[in-house]
Structure formats: structure tokens, C-alpha cells
């Protein structure tokens, strides 16, 4: 399945805009992602391994917080988006 990396985090994914991983749950997919790009870990997870509150993870167009969070089942055709907060405007 595909994980879309937003612009502010691409500096930690070797500039890749998308990463393909094999996974059956959202949690597995994200673990696969940080295993491949370890620099991403501290941006996605807290030190005790929880997803950071300012990082939103979407499965297709749905917030995983309103599904089964990291236990949400995924299929190969699904897309995970990481949606960080950005504040620019001037």
C-alpha cells in the first residue's frame, strides 16, 4: 500500500513523496515506514512510542482516530496520508 509523505516531512524520507509498504494494519504500515526511514520516527512518534497528537493519519479520506486507530485494517489498494499542521500564510 502507499503512504503519502507531506512536504515538511520529505526531508526525512530521502525526498520521496510516497513510500510503498506491505502491511495489514495502519500501525504496521507506519512501522514499516519508519523502519525504512528512521529519521521520520521522532516526527511521528513520541519517545514512548505513541503517535504524536499533531500528526494526523488518514486512511483514504478518513481520520484513523474515527476508525480503529492504528489497529485499522488496510488493503493493498488503500492510501495512508500523513497530514501535518502547517501555519504559513504570509
Amino acid at each position: 500500500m502507499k503512504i503519502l509523505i507531506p512536504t515538511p516531512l520529505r526531508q526525512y524520507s530521502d525526498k520521496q513523496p510516497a513510500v510503498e509498504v506491505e502491511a495489514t494494519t495502519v500501525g504496521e504500515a507506519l512501522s514499516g515506514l519508519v523502519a525504512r526511514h528512521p529519521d521520520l520516527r521522532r516526527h511521528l512518534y513520541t519517545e514512548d512510542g505513541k503517535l504524536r497528537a499533531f500528526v494526523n493519519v488518514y486512511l483514504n479520506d478518513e481520520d484513523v482516530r474515527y476508525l480503529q486507530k492504528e489497529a485499522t485494517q488496510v488493503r493493498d489498494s488503500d492510501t495512508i496520508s500523513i497530514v501535518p499542521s502547517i501555519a504559513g500564510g504570509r
Partner: protein
Amino acid sequence: MATTTQVKPEAVTLTNDEILRYSRHLIMPEVGMEGQQKLKAARVLCIGAGGLGSPLALYLAAAGVGTLGIVDFDVVDCTNLQRQIIHTTADVGRKKLDSAAEKLKAINPFLNLRTFETRLSSDNALDLFRAFDIIADGTDNFPTRYLVNDACVLTGKPNVYGSIFRFEGQASVFATEQGPCYRCLYPEPPPPGLVPSCAEGGVLGILPGLVGVMQATEVIKLILGKGEPLIGRLLLIDALGMKFRELKLRKNPDCPACGTHPTITKLIDYNEFCGIRGEEKPVETKFPEMQVEELKRRLDAGDDLFVLDVREPHEYQICNINGYLIPLGDLPKRVHELDSSREIVAHCRSGVRSGKAVAFLRQAGFKKVHNLAGGILAWADKVDPKMPKY
């Protein structure tokens, strides 16, 4: 002085000059005379007259929004002109409010323009917002984003949101009665320094145009009560791929601002909330700094100094002082390229990133590392006036 009291749209009349001016609106059934009266009766407050605020204010004024408020305290800078199209080269050094007011009144003399030369704060936001119907957020930092959101929730005004980074944008309409607010999406801000600002990260000049016009579109739709506003939807704009995606947003029942048992019942200290103490300023450096004049003198004297440039390769191409290039982000994995027995002077553009590099190197056991105060900008100012600044 013009006021911002609420007027009923049906009580508003258009002069013959206005009817002619808005004829392309009036002949559309979705706007018509009724819609144009609504626009004239509407009061919209734009926070910021910068990248997003420029197209927003220009189009809202042109469209016939009756009362437009703008909050800004900034002065036009040369580096603004690449995207802030309400300002021109001749405006550099002027107050953004004066520059914007001139253009907006030139576009539409019927506009009732109200300018507020102030920094939006917890002390003034509620009073300001109460005098308007819709708030359009064109600010550029997290504390103000949360402030605008909370003040919108507390005063019951929709928050037409847009934000940008490099070539990526987001837009939505927050804080309507039924819809989610900014905090439903982002309960907590990222720690300071994790997400670079436009000043640090750069921004494609046309992107605020694209996103600001989307905000203007949403404002107009809210006023007209037509179409499907971006309520409960987050639009993601990728200008590089020219891809638009839409995500579902839900109103969080546990949201501290708009949930069923809100804990935010008044405005708070947003700098503290976002982990910023006092004014936003570069990381305080406890480490020795070197002034550019001293670096120049010592290099000329042939001292054994290793100049480390921690900027990005594309910045090095703009200008450099022959430093050894290791971008800050690559420093941990390339630290073995440095010789800790030599005296190292680290520099970046203005001194912030190299301050972080010095802190990192000190921790890694380097004893003789200095931060070049003011970075290559100071070098251009004080040593080599021919060097371009960016």
C-alpha cells in the same frame, strides 16, 4: 467614521453605479440582486495583509463585500513582493495597511474599509471579531492560528482557513455551528522549530494566490448561502503535482474548544500554549559566537580555521564564503568528515541553524566550535557588500 453595525441585506440598496459594476454577478441566478445585497451587507475580517491576505482582500473588495476589515502591523519588505501582490515595489517600507488600503479603495471606492494596525492578541481578538460576520485567517504562525480559532468559536464566527508551506496548501471552513474547528483537526501544535515557517522553508509565490483565492471563494459562498462550503472537509493542495485531495473532518465531541464540554471558555496565552516563551526569537545560544569582522581578519591572517556551512546546496549556489558544506539535517551522519582538533566556525544564512549545529557538535565532543553571528547575511552587510542577500 464608517461603522460595522449589522445591516439586514434587504435594507441595503445598490446605486446605479454599483448595479453596473456588479452586473456580471447580478445576471447570475446564484447571486442576483439578493446575493449582491448580502455581499454589500456583509462584514469580513482578514487577519494579515500578506501572502494569503493579498488575493483574499483584493477579490473580496472587487466582489462587492460591503465592509472589509484588515488586521496587520507589518511593513512591506522587498522579499514580500514575490507573492504579496497587493503591494508594489514603490510600497517597500510602507505600512502594509496603508499600501493595501490604497489598492483596495482604487479597485472599489464603494468599499467600507476598516484597518486595525495591531497584532491580534487575546486582549483584542474577541472585541474585533464581534464587529464582523466572517473571519478569514491569513496568518503565518501557530499561536495566532489557535487564537483565531478559539476566538471564532467563542464569538460564533466562521473561520475561513488557509495555510501554505513550500508548494503545499490546506484550506477549510472551521468553527461553524455544525462543523468542526481547527482544534478538532489539530488538538495540539507541533513543538516550536519542528515545522519551518515560510521565512525558513520558502514558499512558491503563486501558492498563496491559489489558496487565498480559495478562501475568498469560501467567504463569498458563506455570505451568499450557496453551494457546498468546505465545512467538515480539509482540502489539500499540491501545486507541484497539481493534485487536489479532500479529507473528511469530524467535529470532535471531546474538543476543548467546540466539544460538548468545552474547557476553553476564554482566550489563553497562545505563545505559552505553543511552547514559545515571550517573543519568537532564534534559539538562545550559550556557545561562543564569532563576529564576521573577526572571521575575516583571522582568515586574512592565515589562521587555521575550518569554515562549516550548514545551509542547503541550493543556498550555497546563491552565495558562499568557500565553507565546507554539510546541511544541518545531514550533520549527524556526516559528522565523521569533521576534525575535532581544528577550530571550526559554523555558519548558515542568519545564524539560527548554525546555532543548532554548534549545539550538536558541542554535544558530540567538539570543543573548538563557534557560531558565526548573523550568518552570511552579516558577512554581506559588514564584510562583502557585493555579496547577494536572500
